[in-house]
């Protein structure tokens, strides 16, 4: 290979080597196994907590565990993609964070003694790609208008900082009606009495006014159909953190209303810091658990 050719390939090699190198040396072991068995079949299930050590684990800020297959030693299938695929979002991660990441499966048969699980773990390592952090200055001066940027557009993400009035209006508009809750409950086979209780609970929570914004609240609407947003933070103009002791949201990836309650009122020139998952920031580690002994 000529020197010129080597130079031309160098960035590509670096690009490929980053995630590969980061994935090396990561050890995945079982931290705990819990099989909750309940006579009412709607509850219970098997949870395997995972311990991740070595490699670039210390730099990971979020992860997603994707199960491909899971079965017990008597042949029961413990993972049903059509049921479980909806749940697979990224969750915050740090090596000392509890609870540990894990996989949630169906309960194995009582006479089973071990389970096998295969899949992969995606680690989000922002240090691998500077484009994961997108900063939007002066967003408070443009309330009720979506913030724009090529990175957001490329990720199909739309974020709109909201005024309190608009937040409340959208909150009211997005709240599911009793009829919708009834229909969804029936679709999932939930008994009428339990659906009724859910409606009462929703009414009670609404009456408590727990979602009411305060002067220190940052209100947002986020559309993120592919679940690319890892976190949204508010920083001062100099980049220093504005602590947010509590956060609340309603809705899902398609449409989410968020309320970030800051410790202090955000200055008018505060910036929004959006952390996005990008292909370069992901490291995939294989998950291959063999003969995990059931308690």
């Amino acid at each position: 290979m000529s020197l010129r050719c080597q130079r031309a390939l160098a960035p590509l090699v670096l690009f490929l080597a980053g995630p590969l190198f980061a994935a090396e040396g990561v050890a995945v072991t079982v931290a705990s196994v819990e099989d909750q068995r309940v006579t009412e079949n709607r509850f219970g299930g098997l949870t395997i907590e995972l311990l991740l050590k070595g490699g670039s684990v210390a730099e990971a800020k979020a992860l997603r565990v994707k199960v491909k297959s899971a079965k017990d030693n008597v042949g029961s299938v413990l993972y049903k993609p059509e049921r479980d695929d909806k749940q697979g979002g990224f969750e915050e991660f740090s090596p000392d964070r509890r609870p540990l990441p894990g996989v949630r499966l169906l309960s194995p048969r009582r006479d089973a003694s071990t389970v096998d699980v295969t899949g992969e773990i995606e680690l989000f390592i922002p240090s691998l790609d500077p484009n994961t952090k997108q900063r939007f200055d002066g967003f408070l001066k443009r309330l009720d208008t979506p913030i724009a940027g090529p990175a957001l557009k490329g990720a199909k993400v739309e974020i709109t900082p909201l005024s309190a009035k608009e937040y409340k209006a959208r909150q009211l508009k997005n709240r599911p009606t009793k009829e919708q809750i009834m229909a969804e409950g029936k679709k999932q086979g939930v008994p009428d009495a339990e659906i009724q209780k859910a409606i009462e609970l929703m009414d009670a929570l609404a009456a408590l006014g727990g979602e009411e914004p305060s002067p220190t609240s940052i209100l947002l609407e986020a559309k993120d159909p592919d679940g690319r947003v890892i976190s949204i933070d508010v920083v001062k103009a100099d980049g220093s953190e504005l602590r947010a002791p509590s956060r609340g949201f309603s809705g899902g990836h398609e449409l989410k209303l968020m309320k970030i309650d800051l410790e202090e009122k955000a200055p008018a020139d505060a910036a929004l810091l959006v952390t996005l998952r990008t292909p370069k920031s992901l490291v995939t580690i294989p998950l291959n658990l063999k003969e995990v002994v059931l308690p």
Partner: protein
Amino acid sequence: MTHRLQRIAGVLLSVALVSAASASAQSKKAAKKGAPPPPEPAAQGAPPKVQVSVGTIFDRRTTRDFPGPELSITFKLEGEDVAAIQSARARVTKATDDTGRDLLVTSGGPQREPASWDEAGEAGVPTPKVDLASPSRKAKTLTALEGVVEAYLPSRDPAGTVTIESVLAKADKPLTLPALVAHGIKLQVLSKAGLENEKKQAEVKKKADAAKKKKGKKGADGLEEMAEAIGDALTNMFERLFMSAGDNDLILKVDDPGKKIFSFGLVAPDGSPIQTYGTTNIEGYRIVRILEPIPKTASLQVRLKTPKSFGELPFALANVKLP
């Protein structure tokens, strides 16, 4: 979190604390090795016409230490007298799985703590629960599940319920009812101002005790420290009361040396119950938790432990399928 949300969280926490306190108190009684815990009080009423069956079984199989592995069984009560049961608790005397494992035996000792009393909630019937040791994974059934459900049926003994009408109007004055005095019970409803007064009195007493000890002999440092510690504990207790009591809660000062009081309840003038959310016990004080303001016309019911108001429901179940 809003004030009301905090209140609800506080209520839930205090309910948990009451359960824990109750279990703890009962565990002391069960300290004798091998002996099953005695029922408190002895159930002497006629057996209620109620059948006991297994409702839900929850088998937590885990490699974790906390919460550890456990088999929880919730019992279902059905029958003619079930509506009269206000509280119930279950005591299992035999539990064996089909591999022969004794589920009364735990790694911590031969006997588990007795279960706490379960109140009839919105469903109207208590669902007492027991926690047993984890069965073998190979087990399919419980070959034997035997024991007794103790039921509290206050309607069986009207004399066992003492009603104090318009209780809010009687705040901060000792309630001298012959039915309570007969049992050696002293009871007082405290307003927030009354509680504040109690706190001040405790502080004055603390200062006086400290001053008295200082005047005492040299070398009595240990006693002085002890007095200070007691005083601090008393002040802390009032701090906890103030922190714990919500605006709508009913605060009671209770002196019940014979432990004759089973529970407290609030009723409207027509006798219908006013929903409460558990009771918190702090030293000689009890806080009856209520989310809404107590109506001025509400009456307080003091439910006493009388032999007639208890009934026992023995059960002997076999081949109980494990989940």
